[in-house]
């Protein structure tokens, strides 16, 4: 099994659990095999400098070119230079999460419309399939 995303200084992570759930942060130091020191930077993502368990986190494919224990200023500059916010929004993971959120916020009327759309789609597929046979 080949690993492509590594826990390293500068790796941008998405926090999955806890009070900072849903926010991005960058790894600025590694504590041990399970924990990392993470910082938003606070002004960009709202995550304060803290130690977080790797179980609470998913690695994204974005890395920043920052040194060990970078300052807020340098982190902010790197964050902006890489344009992390928009890069992440374009990623498959972000799109998937946005879709999940949208589905959860559907009203009863929305669900009805989706049901009709699914039926139409199935109908069109079956029709095409019958034509191909």
């Amino acid at each position: 099994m080949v690993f492509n995303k590594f826990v390293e200084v500068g790796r941008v992570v998405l926090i999955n659990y806890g009070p900072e759930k849903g926010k991005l942060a960058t790894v600025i130091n590694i504590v041990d095999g399970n924990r990392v020191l993470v910082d938003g930077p606070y002004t960009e993502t709202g995550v304060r400098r803290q130690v977080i368990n790797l179980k609470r986190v998913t690695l994204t494919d974005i890395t920043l070119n920052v040194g060990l224990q970078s300052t807020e200023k340098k982190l902010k500059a790197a964050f902006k230079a890489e344009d992390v916010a928009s890069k992440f929004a374009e990623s498959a993971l972000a799109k998937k999460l946005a879709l999940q959120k949208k589905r959860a916020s559907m009203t009863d009327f929305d669900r009805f419309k989706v049901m009709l759309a699914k039926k139409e789609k199935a109908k069109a597929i079956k029709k095409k399939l019958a034509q191909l046979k």
Partner: protein
Amino acid sequence: MGRNEMLAPGVPKYGRSKMMKMRKANQYAKKGGEKKKVEEKKVTYGKYVEADPVKVPLPSTKRSSRPTKLKKTIKPGSVLIVLSGRFMGKRVVFLKQLPSGLLLVTGPYKLNGCPIRRINQAYVIATSTTVDISGVNTDKIDDAYFARVKEAKEGEEGFFDNQEKINPEWLEKRKADQKAIDEPLLAAVSKVSLLAEYLQAPFTLSKGQAPHMMKF
């Protein structure tokens, strides 16, 4: 003790100098001046007061009856999902709350067969979809409108008759009122795409759907 009080035995609250200041009698004039006069408060008599007052009863603490508090999610024109009774699963339009607390709803009749009806808000899920009911006039309809029409006929004959007959006048009146209310409603419903189909379709739960996790 008057103005002063003992904090502990032998320890007064106000010391000598403070007490002196508090005693109005000790408002001594400055050297060479006149002694200040403490003006007596003039006693003014206000309203004429009865010598033997008449007893007035205290205000009643009994609550006057009022209709059940309407759920915040239910607004005039809201589409409601009926959860029990003959029209279980139907999506109906809420018109107004009646003085008894029950909700006045209508299908509309043409769309899902539900007539003008009363329903308890406990047996209803309110959706966030609303229909424009500004053209609908529900003034004529109240709780008395739904009272059972009894034709008192005595004896066994009468008993069987009453069971089978529906007063034709009553039926005609109901039909007319239904039409009067539904016409503007149907016009408003047709303006929104798929809303008519939505009201026609019954509400169902499919696999994996949990009402407590769903947003209505």
